[in-house]
């Protein structure tokens, strides 16, 4: 009994605290920074029109929909400054843009992802119901990168800190992996709760809006049914492969197939991108070891 506890404790420590080289997080940091950069560019262009004074979604509507001053809604914890200063949308978007650029470049250590995360939260807390598919994952990745941005690889100033393996890199990577697994699991569960994902109609419904990438005439219903099953099977396979390390290669290909379905059915580049970035923590691409710069 005691030995099995010891074995479990050892396994836990190896899984979560064994040092890992920071280069394993480089691709995730750069990818999340890029997605955040595009997000803030869009907010810089249209944020004021959406959330500014007289925007599509004004402060009154925002306050009502977070259940302002209604017990149990937790509206008091929505700290976004945009409720009080709706005219500062562009300032926060600009600050977020700079922070995401710094995150990509690896400048500013933990401060860059921290600032980017604050700016992302500022917008999400202002309009939580207008959150798009990719945004919760982007905020989560940025929050985990505050713990450890893995800043020494592929950055402008690689000599900022040591590239030695450390436990914080492993913790951050595992948090992203667990979050990705939970996300895919609930994506699959919520789909399976809807009959259209069983009877093959889901993808067909998504193919219907005019101007999409896929044919939507009646004769193509079989394609909709294939795609519906494809989405379900790939997600189930991703979850299974993540739990079985010998199946890494299969998991990686299933992820690519799932992302292809996201692009074909939703046409959502940002969602596909952030899923790809998160999956890079699960199945890292081979990254060359960085040469040490002469001091």
């Amino acid at each position, binding site marked *: 009994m005691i030995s099995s506890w010891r074995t479990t404790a050892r396994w*836990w*420590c190896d899984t*979560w*605290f064994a040092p890992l080289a920071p280069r394993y997080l480089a691709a995730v940091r750069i990818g999340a920074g890029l997605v955040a950069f595009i997000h803030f560019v*869009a907010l810089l*262009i*249209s944020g004021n*029109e*959406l959330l500014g004074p*007289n*925007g*599509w*979604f*004004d402060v*009154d*509507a925002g306050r*009502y*929909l977070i259940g302002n001053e209604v017990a*149990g809604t*937790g509206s008091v*914890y*929505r*700290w976004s400054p945009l409720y009080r200063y709706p005219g500062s949308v562009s300032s926060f978007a600009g600050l977020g843009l700079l922070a995401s650029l710094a995150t990509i470049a690896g400048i500013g250590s933990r401060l860059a992802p921290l600032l980017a995360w604050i700016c*992302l*939260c500022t917008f*999400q*807390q202002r*309009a*939580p*119901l*207008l*959150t*798009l*598919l990719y945004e*919760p994952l982007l*905020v*989560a990745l940025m*929050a985990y990168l505050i713990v450890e941005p893995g800043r020494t690889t592929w950055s402008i100033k690689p000599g900022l800190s040591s590239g030695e393996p450390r*436990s914080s890199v492993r*913790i951050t990577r595992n*948090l992203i992996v*667990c*979050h990705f697994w*939970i*996300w895919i699991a*609930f*994506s699959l569960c*919520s*789909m399976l*709760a*809807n009959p*259209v994902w069983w009877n093959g109609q*889901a993808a067909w*419904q*998504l193919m*219907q*809006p*005019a101007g999409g990438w896929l044919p939507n005439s009646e004769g193509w219903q079989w394609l909709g049914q294939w795609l519906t099953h494809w989405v379900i099977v790939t997600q189930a396979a991703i979850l299974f492969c993540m739990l079985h390390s010998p199946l890494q290669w299969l998991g990686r290909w299933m992820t690519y197939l799932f992302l292809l379905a996201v692009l074909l*059915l*939703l046409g959502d580049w940002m969602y596909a991108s952030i899923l790809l970035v998160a999956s890079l923590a699960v199945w890292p691409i081979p990254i060359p070891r960085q040469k040490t710069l002469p001091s």
Partner: protein
Amino acid sequence: MSLPRQICISTLLIMHLVFIVLTYATNWRRSSLEDKVLVSMQPYLIGLNWYQEMLPIEWVSENYKPGGVRITIENANAPNSWTSILDLTSSHSARSKIERVIHVSSELASAEDLQGLTCLLKSVVLHLEKGRSPNAPIVTRIRLEKVVNANATDNATSDATGDVLYEASLARFPSGEFGFIPKVESHRSVRANEAIGVNP
């Protein structure tokens, strides 16, 4: 890393992941126990933005399909002509967020939360009328409808092309404010005991 530190970090990690699972699970179905835990953990979950109301994981909603619902307005300058608010968007990057506004409107309509729906529609009308453009429309009527014929969504139409979820005329007050007068559905009649002057 020292053992006490490992124990502390492990406890925090497990708690965090449990709360994430709980948050995602309760977006779907929720027990009263889960609700109590969520409410007590709101400072952490909402304060650090882990909590997601209406988490958009599901691609196909029961009440909403992309392009399946639209908000149209009637402009005073073009009576009996309805224009989709998506066609009045100047910024392409705002389009996906406005589609989300329409999604939330349809969810509010199906939940029969008229106060929330009118609050949202009021914000839309205020935006359209107070835009900087000199050609800003003057909204006389607003309609939320499910589109039956998706191909008919692109053009302004005089009639609803699908099921009307909500329709209202705008009543203007001298103060400059406005209110919504919902259109009474044609199939709904006044019950005998609700009619004025009739004793039950």
